């Protein structure tokens, strides 16, 4: 538990004093696949596209199992987010950033209301009902699980919902 408190304290400090964050950014080496960057052209106007959100900010519904913050290599699982209810029923389990502002307004990490505004205005064609949340900072052997299990399952659900475009937000 003391390790979690330490992580939460560091997260608060580096959010408040961004110059401190540089040390942590430099210390962390993200995994590189070495494969060419994938590319899919957008073929439809946005006004005809169904849009879904994917976030690595660690949000979830209150009745869902929180992300595992004990494992130093992270939690590679994901949570399915119901766009209709998440605004009044969300919790953030993530020790590696200060989410006190996101607790005041979910939209700074998961812009569901902004997308709904755009849908109402006809800028985007449709908003998917299901969205997806992960926790980011995945390392070591969990990377394979993230790519081979979680990402594949998310893709399957996006296809089922005929999603045309995905907007991804970190934290």
């Amino acid at each position, binding site marked *: 538990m003391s390790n979690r408190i330490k992580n939460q304290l560091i997260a608060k400090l580096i959010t408040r004093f961004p110059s401190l964050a540089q040390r942590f950014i430099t210390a962390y080496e993200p995994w590189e696949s070495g494969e060419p*960057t994938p590319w899919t052209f957008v*073929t439809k106007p946005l006004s005809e596209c169904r849009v879904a959100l*994917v976030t690595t900010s660690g949000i979830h519904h209150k009745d869902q199992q929180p992300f595992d913050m004990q494992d130093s290599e992270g939690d590679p699982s994901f949570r399915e987010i119901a766009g209709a209810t998440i605004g009044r029923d969300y919790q953030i389990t993530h020790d590696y950033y200060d989410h006190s502002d996101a607790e005041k307004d979910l939209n*700074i990490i998961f812009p569901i209301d902004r997308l709904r505004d755009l849908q109402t205005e006809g800028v985007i064609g449709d908003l998917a009902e299901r969205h997806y949340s992960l926790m980011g900072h995945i390392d070591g052997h969990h990377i394979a699980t993230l790519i081979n299990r979680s*990402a594949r399952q998310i*893709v399957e659900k*996006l296809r089922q919902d005929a999603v045309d475009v*995905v*907007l991804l937000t*970190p934290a």
Partner: protein
Amino acid sequence: MGLVQREIEKAGIPTIGVSIVREYTEKVQPPRTVYVKWPFGHPLGEPGNIKQQRAVVLEAFRVLYAATTPGEIVDLPFRWRRHDYDSYEEPGAFVPSR
């Protein structure tokens, strides 16, 4: 985040990501990214600042349609807490260029 983005794009669904750590994005190479030099936990900005959040979302969609090079990162000109979003000009139509 970029790893998941790459997998979704690879499966044939176009993606656009928001980044707050340019160094990671440069290494992971997701297909398209808008970058904001803002504190952790604030990729869309500040609580209650609807104009700011909207501007980031619209810029993301603009780059989704405008980007032509895999791995492209567009630095957004929005300064943390010092930007006037009233003068932000919203992009026109979001349509494929080809």
